[in-house]
Protein backbone atom coordinates (compact mmCIF):
# COMPACT_ATOMS: atom_id res chain seq x y z
CA UNK A 1 0.00 0.00 0.00
CA UNK A 2 1.29 3.41 -0.90
CA UNK A 3 2.26 5.65 1.96
CA UNK A 4 0.43 8.81 2.81
CA UNK A 5 1.06 11.69 0.45
CA UNK A 6 2.50 9.48 -2.28
CA UNK A 7 -0.63 8.63 -4.17
CA UNK A 8 -2.28 10.93 -6.64
CA UNK A 9 -1.48 14.52 -7.42
CA UNK A 10 -1.79 17.56 -5.26
CA UNK A 11 0.35 18.76 -2.41
CA UNK A 12 0.45 17.47 1.14
CA UNK A 13 -2.43 19.06 2.95
CA UNK A 14 -5.62 18.50 4.87
CA UNK A 15 -7.39 17.30 1.73
CA UNK A 16 -5.07 14.41 0.94
CA UNK A 17 -4.45 13.43 4.57
CA UNK A 18 -8.18 13.57 5.19
CA UNK A 19 -8.72 11.35 2.17
CA UNK A 20 -6.22 8.81 3.57
CA UNK A 21 -7.91 8.81 6.96
CA UNK A 22 -11.28 8.30 5.32
CA UNK A 23 -9.88 5.42 3.26
CA UNK A 24 -8.37 3.73 6.35
CA UNK A 25 -11.60 4.12 8.27
CA UNK A 26 -13.73 2.66 5.49
CA UNK A 27 -11.29 -0.21 4.99
CA UNK A 28 -11.38 -1.04 8.70
CA UNK A 29 -15.19 -0.97 8.73
CA UNK A 30 -15.31 -3.07 5.57
CA UNK A 31 -13.03 -5.66 7.14
CA UNK A 32 -15.30 -5.81 10.21
CA UNK A 33 -18.40 -6.23 8.02
CA UNK A 34 -16.79 -9.01 5.97
CA UNK A 35 -15.76 -10.77 9.19
CA UNK A 36 -19.29 -10.42 10.56
CA UNK A 37 -20.75 -11.84 7.34
CA UNK A 38 -18.49 -14.90 7.73
CA UNK A 39 -19.64 -15.35 11.36
CA UNK A 40 -23.29 -15.07 10.30
CA UNK A 41 -22.80 -17.64 7.54
CA UNK A 42 -21.24 -20.02 10.06
CA UNK A 43 -24.18 -19.46 12.38
CA UNK A 44 -26.63 -20.24 9.56
CA UNK A 45 -24.84 -23.52 8.87
CA UNK A 46 -24.90 -24.38 12.57
CA UNK A 47 -28.60 -23.59 12.76
CA UNK A 48 -29.27 -26.18 10.07
CA UNK A 49 -28.04 -28.81 12.50
CA UNK A 50 -29.86 -27.36 15.55
CA UNK A 51 -32.91 -29.10 16.98
CA UNK A 52 -36.22 -27.34 17.63
CA UNK A 53 -37.09 -25.79 21.01
CA UNK A 54 -39.33 -28.71 22.02
CA UNK A 55 -36.44 -31.19 21.86
CA UNK A 56 -34.79 -29.97 25.07
CA UNK A 57 -37.85 -29.02 27.09
CA UNK A 58 -38.71 -32.35 28.66
CA UNK A 59 -35.31 -32.59 30.30
CA UNK A 60 -35.55 -28.94 31.35
CA UNK A 61 -38.97 -29.27 33.00
CA UNK A 62 -38.23 -32.53 34.80
CA UNK A 63 -34.83 -31.37 36.06
CA UNK A 64 -36.23 -28.07 37.37
CA UNK A 65 -39.05 -29.81 39.22
CA UNK A 66 -36.76 -32.31 40.91
CA UNK A 67 -34.41 -29.88 42.61
CA UNK A 68 -34.89 -29.02 46.28
CA UNK A 69 -35.79 -25.35 46.75
CA UNK A 70 -36.23 -23.70 50.18
CA UNK A 71 -38.46 -20.94 48.76
CA UNK A 72 -41.08 -23.32 47.35
CA UNK A 73 -44.12 -24.40 49.39
CA UNK A 74 -43.83 -27.88 47.86
CA UNK A 75 -40.36 -29.20 47.13
CA UNK A 76 -38.48 -32.45 46.66
CA UNK A 77 -35.42 -33.86 48.34
CA UNK A 78 -34.18 -33.25 51.82
CA UNK A 79 -34.92 -30.05 53.66
CA UNK A 80 -32.15 -28.49 55.74
CA UNK A 81 -32.79 -27.00 59.14
CA UNK A 82 -30.51 -24.12 58.18
CA UNK A 83 -33.10 -23.00 55.64
CA UNK A 84 -35.17 -21.71 58.58
CA UNK A 85 -32.34 -19.88 60.32
CA UNK A 86 -33.92 -16.58 59.27
CA UNK A 87 -36.71 -17.21 61.78
CA UNK A 88 -34.71 -18.68 64.63
CA UNK A 89 -33.53 -17.03 67.80
CA UNK A 90 -33.62 -13.42 68.84
CA UNK A 91 -31.67 -10.86 66.90
CA UNK A 92 -29.40 -9.54 69.62
CA UNK A 93 -29.84 -5.87 68.86
CA UNK A 94 -28.47 -4.83 72.25
CA UNK A 95 -24.98 -5.84 71.15
CA UNK A 96 -25.36 -4.13 67.82
CA UNK A 97 -22.93 -1.23 67.77
CA UNK A 98 -23.68 -0.02 64.28
CA UNK A 99 -24.86 3.51 63.74
CA UNK A 100 -26.65 5.37 61.03
CA UNK A 101 -24.22 6.86 58.56
Amino acid at each position, binding site marked *: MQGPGSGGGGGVGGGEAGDMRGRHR*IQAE*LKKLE*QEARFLEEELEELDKTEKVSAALQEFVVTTEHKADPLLPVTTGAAYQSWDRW*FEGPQDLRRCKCWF*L
Partner: protein
Amino acid sequence: MASVAELKERHAAATASVNSLRERLRQRRQTLLDTDVEKYSKAQGRTAVSFNQTDLVCCRTLLGHSGKVYSLDWTPEKNWIVSASQDGRLIVWNALTSQKTHAIKLHCPWVMTCAFAPNGQSVACGGLDSACSIFNLNSQVDRDGNMPVSRVLTGHKGYVSSCQYVPDQETRMITGSGDQTCVLWDVTTGQRMSIFGGEFPSGHTADVLSLSINPLNTNMFVSGSCDTTVRLWDLRIASRAVRTYHGHEGDINSVKFFPDGQRFGTGSDDGTCRLFDMRTGHQLQVYSREPDRNDNELPIVTSIAFSISGRLLFAGYSNGDCYVWDTLLAEVVLNLGTLQNSHEGRISCLGLSSDGSALCTGSWDKNLKIWAFSGHRKIV
Protein backbone atom coordinates in the same frame (compact mmCIF):
# COMPACT_ATOMS: atom_id res chain seq x y z
CA MET B 1 -5.45 0.88 -4.87
CA ALA B 2 -9.22 1.12 -4.66
CA SER B 3 -10.58 4.63 -4.56
CA VAL B 4 -12.67 5.93 -1.69
CA ALA B 5 -15.71 5.80 -3.94
CA GLU B 6 -15.09 2.13 -4.74
CA LEU B 7 -14.53 1.36 -1.06
CA LYS B 8 -17.80 3.06 -0.20
CA GLU B 9 -19.59 0.93 -2.77
CA ARG B 10 -18.09 -2.24 -1.33
CA HIS B 11 -19.02 -1.04 2.17
CA ALA B 12 -22.65 -0.56 1.10
CA ALA B 13 -22.71 -4.00 -0.51
CA ALA B 14 -21.19 -5.62 2.59
CA THR B 15 -23.75 -3.86 4.82
CA ALA B 16 -26.59 -5.15 2.63
CA SER B 17 -25.10 -8.65 2.75
CA VAL B 18 -24.86 -8.61 6.56
CA ASN B 19 -28.44 -7.33 6.90
CA SER B 20 -29.69 -10.03 4.55
CA LEU B 21 -27.82 -12.75 6.47
CA ARG B 22 -29.26 -11.45 9.76
CA GLU B 23 -32.79 -11.62 8.36
CA ARG B 24 -32.23 -15.14 7.02
CA LEU B 25 -30.96 -16.18 10.46
CA ARG B 26 -33.96 -14.63 12.16
CA GLN B 27 -36.38 -16.44 9.86
CA ARG B 28 -34.54 -19.78 10.16
CA ARG B 29 -34.59 -19.49 13.94
CA GLN B 30 -38.31 -18.66 13.88
CA THR B 31 -39.04 -21.98 12.14
CA LEU B 32 -37.34 -23.81 15.03
CA LEU B 33 -39.51 -22.12 17.68
CA ASP B 34 -42.23 -24.80 17.63
CA THR B 35 -43.27 -24.16 21.24
CA ASP B 36 -42.18 -22.40 24.42
CA VAL B 37 -41.74 -23.45 28.05
CA GLU B 38 -45.25 -22.30 29.06
CA LYS B 39 -47.10 -24.11 26.26
CA TYR B 40 -45.03 -27.24 26.78
CA SER B 41 -45.51 -27.28 30.58
CA LYS B 42 -49.27 -26.75 30.30
CA ALA B 43 -49.53 -29.49 27.68
CA GLN B 44 -47.75 -31.77 30.15
CA GLY B 45 -50.37 -30.98 32.77
CA ARG B 46 -48.17 -28.85 35.03
CA THR B 47 -49.82 -26.29 37.32
CA ALA B 48 -48.36 -23.12 38.76
CA VAL B 49 -46.71 -22.84 42.15
CA SER B 50 -49.29 -21.70 44.69
CA PHE B 51 -48.27 -19.34 47.49
CA ASN B 52 -50.32 -18.21 50.46
CA GLN B 53 -50.01 -14.49 51.13
CA THR B 54 -47.84 -15.13 54.20
CA ASP B 55 -45.51 -17.77 52.73
CA LEU B 56 -42.75 -15.38 51.65
CA VAL B 57 -42.14 -12.69 54.23
CA CYS B 58 -39.73 -9.85 54.76
CA CYS B 59 -37.72 -11.10 57.73
CA ARG B 60 -35.02 -8.38 57.85
CA THR B 61 -34.74 -4.76 56.80
CA LEU B 62 -31.16 -3.56 56.54
CA LEU B 63 -31.08 0.13 57.41
CA GLY B 64 -28.03 2.30 57.04
CA HIS B 65 -27.54 3.71 53.56
CA SER B 66 -28.45 7.36 53.12
CA GLY B 67 -28.94 7.10 49.39
CA LYS B 68 -30.45 4.79 46.77
CA VAL B 69 -29.12 1.25 46.81
CA TYR B 70 -27.76 0.34 43.38
CA SER B 71 -26.17 -3.07 43.75
CA LEU B 72 -25.75 -5.99 46.15
CA ASP B 73 -23.92 -9.31 46.30
CA TRP B 74 -23.91 -12.22 48.77
CA THR B 75 -20.86 -14.14 49.94
CA PRO B 76 -20.73 -17.69 48.61
CA GLU B 77 -20.57 -19.24 52.08
CA LYS B 78 -21.49 -16.99 55.01
CA ASN B 79 -24.60 -14.85 55.42
CA TRP B 80 -22.84 -11.64 54.42
CA ILE B 81 -23.96 -9.12 51.84
CA VAL B 82 -22.13 -6.16 50.33
CA SER B 83 -24.23 -3.27 49.03
CA ALA B 84 -23.36 -0.15 47.03
CA SER B 85 -25.27 3.09 47.25
CA GLN B 86 -25.69 6.57 45.82
CA ASP B 87 -24.39 7.75 49.23
CA GLY B 88 -20.91 6.80 47.99
CA ARG B 89 -20.45 3.91 50.37
CA LEU B 90 -20.19 0.16 50.39
CA ILE B 91 -21.69 -1.51 53.44
CA VAL B 92 -20.98 -5.11 54.42
CA TRP B 93 -23.83 -6.66 56.38
CA ASN B 94 -24.30 -9.80 58.41
CA ALA B 95 -27.73 -10.51 56.95
CA LEU B 96 -28.65 -12.90 59.78
CA THR B 97 -28.09 -10.35 62.55
CA SER B 98 -28.65 -7.20 60.43
CA GLN B 99 -25.36 -5.84 61.77
CA LYS B 100 -23.06 -3.74 59.65
CA THR B 101 -19.55 -5.19 59.78
CA HIS B 102 -17.90 -2.64 57.45
CA ALA B 103 -18.81 0.75 56.03
CA ILE B 104 -16.43 1.82 53.26
CA LYS B 105 -16.35 5.39 52.01
CA LEU B 106 -15.45 5.42 48.32
CA HIS B 107 -13.11 7.85 46.58
CA CYS B 108 -15.58 8.09 43.73
CA PRO B 109 -19.13 8.24 45.09
CA TRP B 110 -20.71 7.38 41.73
CA VAL B 111 -20.75 3.66 42.25
CA MET B 112 -22.87 1.34 40.11
CA THR B 113 -21.86 -2.21 41.00
CA CYS B 114 -20.28 -4.28 43.75
CA ALA B 115 -19.19 -7.86 44.28
CA PHE B 116 -17.90 -10.14 47.03
CA ALA B 117 -14.74 -12.18 46.47
CA PRO B 118 -15.31 -15.97 46.66
CA ASN B 119 -13.43 -16.23 49.98
CA GLY B 120 -15.42 -13.37 51.52
CA GLN B 121 -12.24 -11.47 52.39
CA SER B 122 -12.48 -8.73 49.74
CA VAL B 123 -15.11 -6.64 48.02
CA ALA B 124 -14.97 -4.88 44.67
CA CYS B 125 -16.90 -1.98 43.22
CA GLY B 126 -16.99 0.11 40.08
CA GLY B 127 -18.84 3.04 38.58
CA LEU B 128 -18.45 6.34 36.79
CA ASP B 129 -14.73 6.53 37.56
CA SER B 130 -14.32 3.80 34.87
CA ALA B 131 -12.32 1.73 37.35
CA CYS B 132 -12.87 -1.19 39.64
CA SER B 133 -11.64 -0.74 43.24
CA ILE B 134 -10.83 -3.68 45.50
CA PHE B 135 -10.92 -3.48 49.30
CA ASN B 136 -9.48 -6.13 51.63
CA LEU B 137 -11.91 -6.37 54.55
CA ASN B 138 -9.09 -7.30 56.93
CA SER B 139 -7.24 -4.02 56.27
CA GLN B 140 -6.68 -1.54 59.07
CA VAL B 141 -8.53 1.71 58.52
CA ASP B 142 -6.41 4.85 58.15
CA ARG B 143 -6.35 7.67 60.68
CA ASP B 144 -9.47 9.21 59.13
CA GLY B 145 -11.30 5.95 59.67
CA ASN B 146 -11.30 5.11 55.96
CA MET B 147 -10.50 1.71 54.55
CA PRO B 148 -7.60 1.85 52.09
CA VAL B 149 -8.03 0.58 48.55
CA SER B 150 -5.88 -2.50 48.00
CA ARG B 151 -6.02 -2.46 44.20
CA VAL B 152 -7.56 -0.34 41.43
CA LEU B 153 -8.25 -1.95 38.07
CA THR B 154 -7.91 0.76 35.44
CA GLY B 155 -8.22 0.49 31.68
CA HIS B 156 -11.87 0.78 30.80
CA LYS B 157 -12.75 3.80 28.70
CA GLY B 158 -16.25 4.07 30.10
CA TYR B 159 -18.19 3.50 33.31
CA VAL B 160 -18.02 0.10 35.00
CA SER B 161 -21.62 -1.15 35.14
CA SER B 162 -21.08 -4.67 36.43
CA CYS B 163 -18.43 -6.83 38.04
CA GLN B 164 -18.20 -10.42 39.18
CA TYR B 165 -15.34 -12.51 40.55
CA VAL B 166 -14.76 -15.76 38.71
CA PRO B 167 -16.17 -18.33 41.20
CA ASP B 168 -13.58 -20.13 43.32
CA GLN B 169 -10.89 -17.77 42.06
CA GLU B 170 -9.93 -14.83 44.24
CA THR B 171 -7.56 -13.72 41.55
CA ARG B 172 -9.79 -13.21 38.52
CA MET B 173 -12.68 -10.89 37.90
CA ILE B 174 -14.82 -9.86 34.94
CA THR B 175 -16.17 -6.34 34.46
CA GLY B 176 -18.71 -4.92 32.02
CA SER B 177 -18.51 -1.33 30.85
CA GLY B 178 -20.10 1.60 29.09
CA ASP B 179 -17.15 1.36 26.65
CA GLN B 180 -18.98 -1.66 25.10
CA THR B 181 -16.43 -4.22 26.31
CA CYS B 182 -16.04 -6.77 29.05
CA VAL B 183 -12.61 -7.35 30.58
CA LEU B 184 -11.07 -10.29 32.42
CA TRP B 185 -8.67 -9.02 35.11
CA ASP B 186 -5.91 -10.56 37.17
CA VAL B 187 -6.79 -8.91 40.47
CA THR B 188 -3.41 -9.58 42.10
CA THR B 189 -1.46 -7.71 39.41
CA GLY B 190 -4.19 -5.36 38.18
CA GLN B 191 -3.51 -6.45 34.60
CA ARG B 192 -6.13 -6.88 31.90
CA MET B 193 -5.88 -10.51 30.78
CA SER B 194 -8.46 -10.34 27.97
CA ILE B 195 -10.79 -7.82 26.39
CA PHE B 196 -14.12 -9.07 25.00
CA GLY B 197 -15.49 -6.88 22.24
CA GLY B 198 -14.19 -3.45 21.33
CA GLU B 199 -11.96 -3.66 18.25
CA PHE B 200 -13.05 -7.18 17.36
CA PRO B 201 -16.18 -7.86 15.36
CA SER B 202 -18.99 -9.70 17.21
CA GLY B 203 -18.55 -7.43 20.23
CA HIS B 204 -21.37 -5.38 21.67
CA THR B 205 -22.23 -2.22 19.77
CA ALA B 206 -23.45 -0.28 22.81
CA ASP B 207 -22.87 -0.08 26.59
CA VAL B 208 -22.59 -3.35 28.50
CA LEU B 209 -24.91 -3.17 31.50
CA SER B 210 -24.79 -6.62 33.07
CA LEU B 211 -22.93 -9.92 33.12
CA SER B 212 -23.22 -13.39 34.61
CA ILE B 213 -20.64 -16.16 34.83
CA ASN B 214 -21.82 -19.73 34.24
CA PRO B 215 -21.77 -21.41 37.67
CA LEU B 216 -21.18 -24.85 36.16
CA ASN B 217 -18.61 -23.85 33.55
CA THR B 218 -16.72 -20.81 34.76
CA ASN B 219 -14.98 -20.41 31.40
CA MET B 220 -18.24 -19.07 29.98
CA PHE B 221 -20.08 -15.86 30.73
CA VAL B 222 -22.87 -13.81 29.20
CA SER B 223 -23.13 -10.04 28.90
CA GLY B 224 -26.25 -7.91 28.40
CA SER B 225 -26.16 -4.58 26.59
CA CYS B 226 -27.93 -1.45 25.47
CA ASP B 227 -27.64 -2.92 21.95
CA THR B 228 -30.56 -5.21 23.02
CA THR B 229 -28.50 -8.38 22.67
CA VAL B 230 -26.85 -10.84 25.01
CA ARG B 231 -23.49 -12.30 23.97
CA LEU B 232 -21.88 -15.48 25.19
CA TRP B 233 -18.12 -15.40 25.70
CA ASP B 234 -15.46 -18.02 26.32
CA LEU B 235 -12.70 -16.71 28.61
CA ARG B 236 -10.16 -18.59 26.50
CA ILE B 237 -11.25 -16.97 23.20
CA ALA B 238 -11.53 -13.21 23.44
CA SER B 239 -11.45 -12.59 19.70
CA ARG B 240 -15.10 -13.36 19.05
CA ALA B 241 -18.37 -13.90 20.86
CA VAL B 242 -19.46 -17.55 20.86
CA ARG B 243 -23.08 -16.60 20.22
CA THR B 244 -25.37 -13.58 20.10
CA TYR B 245 -28.94 -13.78 21.41
CA HIS B 246 -31.62 -11.58 19.89
CA GLY B 247 -35.19 -10.95 21.03
CA HIS B 248 -35.31 -8.03 23.42
CA GLU B 249 -36.38 -4.62 22.20
CA GLY B 250 -34.64 -2.50 24.78
CA ASP B 251 -31.55 -2.24 26.99
CA ILE B 252 -30.78 -5.45 28.83
CA ASN B 253 -30.33 -4.36 32.43
CA SER B 254 -29.83 -7.77 33.98
CA VAL B 255 -28.64 -11.24 32.92
CA LYS B 256 -28.38 -14.28 35.20
CA PHE B 257 -27.49 -17.87 34.44
CA PHE B 258 -30.11 -20.48 35.25
CA PRO B 259 -28.89 -22.78 38.05
CA ASP B 260 -28.24 -25.65 35.60
CA GLY B 261 -25.81 -23.55 33.59
CA GLN B 262 -27.57 -24.50 30.33
CA ARG B 263 -29.86 -21.49 30.12
CA PHE B 264 -29.94 -17.90 31.24
CA GLY B 265 -32.53 -15.25 32.02
CA THR B 266 -32.64 -11.59 31.10
CA GLY B 267 -34.49 -8.45 32.21
CA SER B 268 -34.92 -5.44 29.96
CA ASP B 269 -36.13 -1.89 29.43
CA ASP B 270 -38.78 -3.43 27.14
CA GLY B 271 -40.57 -4.58 30.29
CA THR B 272 -40.04 -8.30 29.71
CA CYS B 273 -37.86 -11.04 31.10
CA ARG B 274 -36.77 -13.82 28.77
CA LEU B 275 -35.23 -17.26 29.05
CA PHE B 276 -32.67 -18.37 26.46
CA ASP B 277 -31.01 -21.69 25.76
CA MET B 278 -27.26 -21.06 25.89
CA ARG B 279 -26.22 -23.84 23.51
CA THR B 280 -28.83 -23.50 20.76
CA GLY B 281 -29.49 -19.76 21.04
CA HIS B 282 -33.27 -20.33 21.16
CA GLN B 283 -35.52 -17.96 23.07
CA LEU B 284 -37.42 -20.42 25.27
CA GLN B 285 -39.89 -18.08 26.97
CA VAL B 286 -40.97 -14.46 27.30
CA TYR B 287 -42.27 -13.27 30.67
CA SER B 288 -44.50 -10.25 29.91
CA ARG B 289 -46.55 -8.22 32.34
CA GLU B 290 -50.17 -7.41 31.67
CA PRO B 291 -50.48 -3.84 30.37
CA ASP B 292 -51.55 -1.25 32.91
CA ARG B 293 -55.30 -0.56 32.98
CA ASN B 294 -54.55 3.15 32.68
CA ASP B 295 -52.38 2.47 29.65
CA ASN B 296 -49.27 3.82 31.36
CA GLU B 297 -45.88 2.80 30.03
CA LEU B 298 -44.75 -0.67 31.03
CA PRO B 299 -42.37 -0.57 34.00
CA ILE B 300 -38.86 -1.66 33.06
CA VAL B 301 -37.16 -4.71 34.51
CA THR B 302 -34.18 -3.57 36.56
CA SER B 303 -32.87 -6.87 37.96
CA ILE B 304 -33.56 -10.60 38.02
CA ALA B 305 -32.57 -13.70 39.98
CA PHE B 306 -33.53 -17.37 39.88
CA SER B 307 -34.37 -19.46 42.94
CA ILE B 308 -31.92 -22.31 43.52
CA SER B 309 -34.00 -24.83 41.54
CA GLY B 310 -34.83 -22.29 38.86
CA ARG B 311 -38.56 -22.81 39.37
CA LEU B 312 -38.98 -19.19 40.49
CA LEU B 313 -37.78 -16.12 38.61
CA PHE B 314 -37.64 -12.98 40.76
CA ALA B 315 -37.89 -9.75 38.77
CA GLY B 316 -37.56 -6.24 40.15
CA TYR B 317 -39.30 -3.45 38.28
CA SER B 318 -38.96 0.33 38.16
CA ASN B 319 -42.38 0.86 39.80
CA GLY B 320 -41.45 -1.03 42.99
CA ASP B 321 -43.01 -4.34 41.99
CA CYS B 322 -41.03 -7.49 42.60
CA TYR B 323 -42.77 -10.21 40.64
CA VAL B 324 -42.22 -13.85 41.45
CA TRP B 325 -42.67 -15.70 38.15
CA ASP B 326 -43.28 -19.42 37.92
CA THR B 327 -40.57 -20.06 35.32
CA LEU B 328 -42.31 -23.10 33.82
CA LEU B 329 -45.86 -21.75 33.61
CA ALA B 330 -44.89 -18.11 32.91
CA GLU B 331 -47.34 -16.92 35.56
CA VAL B 332 -46.83 -14.31 38.26
CA VAL B 333 -47.42 -16.25 41.49
CA LEU B 334 -46.61 -13.48 43.95
CA ASN B 335 -45.70 -9.79 44.01
CA LEU B 336 -43.33 -8.99 46.88
CA GLY B 337 -43.99 -5.32 46.15
CA THR B 338 -47.51 -5.59 47.52
CA LEU B 339 -46.71 -7.60 50.64
CA GLN B 340 -46.52 -6.18 54.11
CA ASN B 341 -43.29 -4.35 54.85
CA SER B 342 -42.27 -4.13 51.21
CA HIS B 343 -40.01 -1.50 49.65
CA GLU B 344 -41.29 2.00 48.98
CA GLY B 345 -39.42 2.56 45.77
CA ARG B 346 -37.86 0.96 42.70
CA ILE B 347 -36.17 -2.39 43.24
CA SER B 348 -32.72 -1.88 41.75
CA CYS B 349 -30.98 -5.16 42.59
CA LEU B 350 -31.71 -8.68 43.81
CA GLY B 351 -29.75 -11.72 44.83
CA LEU B 352 -30.24 -15.15 46.38
CA SER B 353 -28.17 -16.46 49.28
CA SER B 354 -25.89 -19.34 48.30
CA ASP B 355 -28.21 -22.00 49.78
CA GLY B 356 -31.23 -20.39 48.16
CA SER B 357 -33.03 -19.90 51.47
CA ALA B 358 -33.22 -16.11 51.26
CA LEU B 359 -33.67 -13.40 48.67
CA CYS B 360 -32.18 -9.96 49.24
CA THR B 361 -33.68 -6.96 47.47
CA GLY B 362 -32.11 -3.50 47.25
CA SER B 363 -34.12 -0.39 46.51
CA TRP B 364 -34.10 3.30 45.72
CA ASP B 365 -35.85 3.66 49.12
CA LYS B 366 -32.29 3.28 50.58
CA ASN B 367 -32.99 -0.06 52.21
CA LEU B 368 -32.22 -3.71 51.66
CA LYS B 369 -34.68 -6.40 52.64
CA ILE B 370 -34.33 -10.12 53.20
CA TRP B 371 -37.19 -12.41 52.20
CA ALA B 372 -37.54 -16.03 53.23
CA PHE B 373 -40.17 -18.79 53.32
CA SER B 374 -42.05 -18.86 56.61
CA GLY B 375 -45.04 -20.98 55.66
CA HIS B 376 -45.66 -24.70 55.93
CA ARG B 377 -43.22 -26.50 53.64
CA LYS B 378 -44.29 -29.81 52.12
CA ILE B 379 -41.49 -32.19 51.11
CA VAL B 380 -42.39 -34.78 48.51
